[in-house]
Structure formats: structure tokens, C-alpha cells
């Protein structure tokens, strides 16, 4: 390695640490406070009380490569939220700092799991399984 590059290493490392620190500060500053007393989820633009949602639907158990999970079917949630022709839409599941978009077929297989407000899709990679879901946007 050339002498000049060796001497640059501490400077590059400092820049890297500054990027990490500033990103951490940004993520913490923009974090939305979670209402733990009365958690809600927005579906198709309308807010729903999560505890109430879990009393409205019969639970469904899905078998995944990470074990069995029981929750309420996501497709039933979407129909309940008055989405017309659900098969013609895409669904962006949003957490505070993460989001993924899935199609209707995935929604038909997926469940909303109450513990840590997770969505679980047995037929998709785990990067689609999300924690602390705050919104399901219909596009």
C-alpha cells in the first residue's frame, strides 16, 4: 500500500465514524413515539385500534421456516378496510424506519401477528417480515 494511502486511513476512518454517528442521531431524532397504551395501525388511510382488530377476525396459523405463528389474516384486514378489487393493488407495509411492498398473493398468505406488531409472510424472505408496523398503504 502506498505511503500516502496509509496516512489517509485514520482520516477516512474518522469520516466513516462521523457518518455513523450523524446517522444514529438522525434516526433517533426522527423516531416517532409509539403509543403503547392504545396502539393503532393505519390501513388504506384510516387508523384502526389494534386490540379491537384482533377481536374482529378469526385467527389463522401459518407454518414458516421459523416455526408456527398465529395472527389475523392480512387479506381479511384489507377487505375490512374497504379496498375495492384488492387483487389489483400493491401493499406497502410501513414501520418507523423500514418499509416493503408486497402483492395481493403475499397478503393472502400473510398474517398480522400481535406480538411486536409483526407481519409474517410464510412464502417471502424475512426481509419482508416487519416489526412495529404502523401503516399498510394501498397503492
Amino acid at each position, binding site marked *: *500500500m*502506498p505511503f500516502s*494511502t*496509509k496516512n489517509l*486511513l*485514520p482520516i*477516512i*476512518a474518522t469520516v*466513516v*465514524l462521523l*457518518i*455513523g*454517528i450523524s*446517522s*444514529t442521531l*438522525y*434516526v433517533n431524532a*426522527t423516531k416517532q413515539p409509539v403509543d403503547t397504551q392504545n396502539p393503532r395501525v393505519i390501513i388504506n388511510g384510516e387508523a384502526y385500534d389494534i386490540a379491537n382488530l384482533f377481536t374482529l377476525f378469526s385467527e389463522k396459523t401459518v407454518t*414458516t*421456516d*421459523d416455526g408456527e405463528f398465529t395472527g389475523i389474516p392480512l387479506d381479511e384486514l384489507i377487505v375490512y378496510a374497504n379496498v375495492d378489487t384488492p387483487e389489483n393493488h*400493491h401493499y*406497502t407495509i410501513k414501520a418507523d*424506519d*423500514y*418499509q*416493503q*411492498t*408486497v*402483492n395481493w398473493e403475499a397478503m393472502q398468505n400473510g398474517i398480522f401477528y400481535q406480538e411486536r406488531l409483526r407481519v409474517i409472510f410464510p412464502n*417471502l*424472505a*424475512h*426481509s*419482508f417480515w416487519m416489526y412495529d408496523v404502523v401503516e399498510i398503504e394501498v397503492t
Partner: protein
Amino acid sequence: MMNKRVLLGILVLGSCWGLLEAVMGSVFKAAQLPYGVLMTTLFALPILVISKMMFSHRGAQTGVGMVAGSLAFFNPWIGCSVCSAIAIAAEAIIFEIIWLRIKENDFGSLTLIQKASLGVITAYGVYVSGYMITQILTPALYGSFLFTNFIVVVPQILAQGLPASLLGFLTVPLVMSTYKLNITIQDKLYYPTGATITVLCWLFIVGNWLIFIT
């Protein structure tokens, strides 16, 4: 041109990394520890630095990552074998790019500060790039990659790289310091031991995967 000794070394290191990913990854995950950061800094980086110390051949570290990624694909315990395999292969390629200009004599000539700085840069670069590539390729594999979804997660990925870089500050200089030990293994011990370790790693993971799927 890689010789048989180098190829076996790549197989051994890649298989050990794949095994550690499967076994320790599931332990960290079960303990709800930051699995990705710990796997990258405690196992991936040391194995890649060792491979660079042993084999300076171009493509050796990518080879180690490909072997580990292939083994991770059969991981029966971690859940998302696709994400894991993509992340491992990506980390190895990024490591090889970052360390492209590091030569054999640099292991002895770099000062402690320079080694620690290299640790910070490598850990951050490898972890952040691996995470970003996984966030692009995994949805793309399922035909649902959207740039807007990726942009939302970028600050989170850049922030999660911070603990990785701090751990890299410690692990990389530590592993690089073993260069002074100058360990060599004779051919009559190297080949049988290497082949045995490789076969055992694959048997353990693939065997458990077969049990899991049947």
C-alpha cells in the same frame, strides 16, 4: 493461478464461516443480540483477514464468501437463508475491494492506529454494503424491489454500521497482529486436515437441513 493449497484454504475458511454463521447466528438471534453486526465483526472479518494473510491471490476472499454463502443457503436454523447467503457473498466481495491495495508486507508495516482505522473502514464498509445489497437483491428476487422502500431504510443501515465499525476497530488489528506468529502447516498435515474440516462442516449443515426438510 490458484494452486490446490489455495483452493483448499478457500474451502476450509468458507466452510468454517458458513458453519459459524449457522450455529452462532442462531444463538445470537435466539438471544436477541444484534446478529448481523456480531456475525460480521466477530466471524466474517477475522476469517476474511486471515484469508488475506494466507492467500493474497485476487478472488480468494470472494471465493471464501461464495463457499460460506453456499453453505449458509442450507442453514436450517436461521430462517432466511436467501438473505443470509446474499449478505455473506456481498460482504466478501466488498472486503476484497476495500483490501485490494493491501499487500503482504502491509501486515507488518502498518502502525496500530492505521490497522485500527482499517478495521473501522472495513467493518463499516462491509456491514453497510452487505446490508444494502441484501435490501436490494432480496426484494428484487421476489420481483418487488422499489427504490422508495430502499431509501427509507438507508439512514437506519448507516446508523447500524456504527457499532460494527467500533467492533472492527478492535477485531481487525487483533487478527492482523497474528501475522507475526508466522504459522505454517506442512503439506502432509494441511491436506487431510483441511479436507476433513470442510467435509465435517458441510455434513453437519446439510445433514441438519435434510433432517429439517424431511
